[in-house]
């Protein structure tokens, strides 16, 4: 019996293994066989695992592409969103500035048209904290020559009157307030009747006889008899007329946009607003001006 030394056992094994494989190769070459059977076994063994592995990697890739791979897209999207937000804000800001410019232009135009009438532009800085009253605060006060009961208007029409005056600010009672009122008349018939607020967007014209011919759309102007507002300022237009007892119920839509006031004009005198061909200059809201003495 041939004894293989221990130290040569691995070499012998190597030789045997290599020889076996060389023979296997030789057989394959000789028979042109590709060892199909053993390949089938190997493939059948490994294929289910490969399928599972492939499924796993596809899922992982899907998660990666669908989530982690989108991190940059999300970042870009966030940047674009932020830029879009900035641009939208900028657009709103520009639109606001354009609207403000238009309003200021209207104020200046109004001021220029009545250059001989002392008036002061003011900016609305707050509304009343009391929800039951309709009042605003303006950025003009006693220091600017503002006094109680001065008329407050816009180029569109009457706003209200100065109710309280402080050093640097003043409270203006809007026409829509229940406590508010203005002497008015119907433009067509010159029928007089006070117009006051009822705490609603529409005003009420009182004490107009049922015999008077009043129709919706008629213009309502100040009468000048309240000693606050000059004559012939637009108060509003008749929105609805109902017969009542003993007087008509006339609802008036304010001429001024009382729900979105930003700049107003405080009339420092009751002088009639007659359009003047001489265009004067007046500061924009927030600017300085020299108030004239109120002509009472």
């Amino acid at each position, binding site marked *: 019996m041939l004894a293989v030394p221990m130290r040569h*056992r*691995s*070499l012998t*094994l*190597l030789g045997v*293994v*290599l020889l076996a*494989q*060389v023979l*296997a*190769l*030789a057989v*394959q*070459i000789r028979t042109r066989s*590709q*060892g199909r059977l*053993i*390949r089938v*076994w*190997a*493939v059948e063994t*490994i294929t289910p*695992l*490969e399928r599972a*592995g*492939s499924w796993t*990697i*596809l899922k992982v*890739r899907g998660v990666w592409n669908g989530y982690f791979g989108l991190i940059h897209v999300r970042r870009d999207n966030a940047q674009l969103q932020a830029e879009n937000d900035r641009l939208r804000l900028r657009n709103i800001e520009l639109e606001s500035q354009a609207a403000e410019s238009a309003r200021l232009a209207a104020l200046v135009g109004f001021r220029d048209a009545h250059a001989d009438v002392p008036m002061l532009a003011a900016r609305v800085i707050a509304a009343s904290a009391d929800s039951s009253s309709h009042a605003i605060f303006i950025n003009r006060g006693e220091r600017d020559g503002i006094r109680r009961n001065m008329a407050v208007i816009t180029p569109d029409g009457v706003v209200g009157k100065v109710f309280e005056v402080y050093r640097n600010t003043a409270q203006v009672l809007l026409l829509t307030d229940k406590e508010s009122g203005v002497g008015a008349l119907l433009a067509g018939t010159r029928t007089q009747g006070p117009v006051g607020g009822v705490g609603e967007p529409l005003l009420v014209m009182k004490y107009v006889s049922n015999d008077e011919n009043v129709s919706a759309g008629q213009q309502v102007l100040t009468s000048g008899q309240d000693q606050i507002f000059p004559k012939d300022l637009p108060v509003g237009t008749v929105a609805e007329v109902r017969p009542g007892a003993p007087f008509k119920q006339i609802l008036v839509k304010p001429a001024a946009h009382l729900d979105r006031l930003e700049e107003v004009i405080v009339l420092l005198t009751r002088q009639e607003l007659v359009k003047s061909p001489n265009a004067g200059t007046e500061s924009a809201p927030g600017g300085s001006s020299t108030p004239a003495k109120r002509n009472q």
Partner: protein
Amino acid sequence: MAAYTPTETHIEVHKFRVLAVIGVTLAALLIQSFLPVHFPRARMLDLPLLVTLYFGFSRRNPSTGLLLGMVIGLAQDCLGRSAIGLYGIAKTLTGFLASSFGSRIDVEHPLSRFGLTVAFYIFHQAAYTLTQRVLLAQHEALFTTHLLLQAGLNALVAIVLFPLLDKLRLPS
């Protein structure tokens, strides 16, 4: 006359659970099979060779090293299109030599692992190509720069992979 006394160096032999060896081998074959489908550049890797090398270095038993190399090589042949035995022979030789080297030198250091992996990768490819030339009369280039690149890449992977596989060692 002074007697020659060989220097004794302690080389630790590491053992693994059989299931761990089978699992790692199957995983290597599996990943080698489907990874290039999704990542074509993964074709440059030879994970079965790295597994052969790792177990050869760790077990330090030439017999088990060559047998494991044979099994892995034959499996690789079966799962590929090459004649059965080409990878078998190359990996048998590689497993045998890796085990032999593992029992003589330190194969734990990353640099040592890198250098040995480069060397054995080139040896493996040379054995494969020579077998092709001699037994199958298929003339393939023996040495290319691409081979060096692949060797370096596989060695880099080995530096990462081997410490992971070290965790499978049974406590001695």
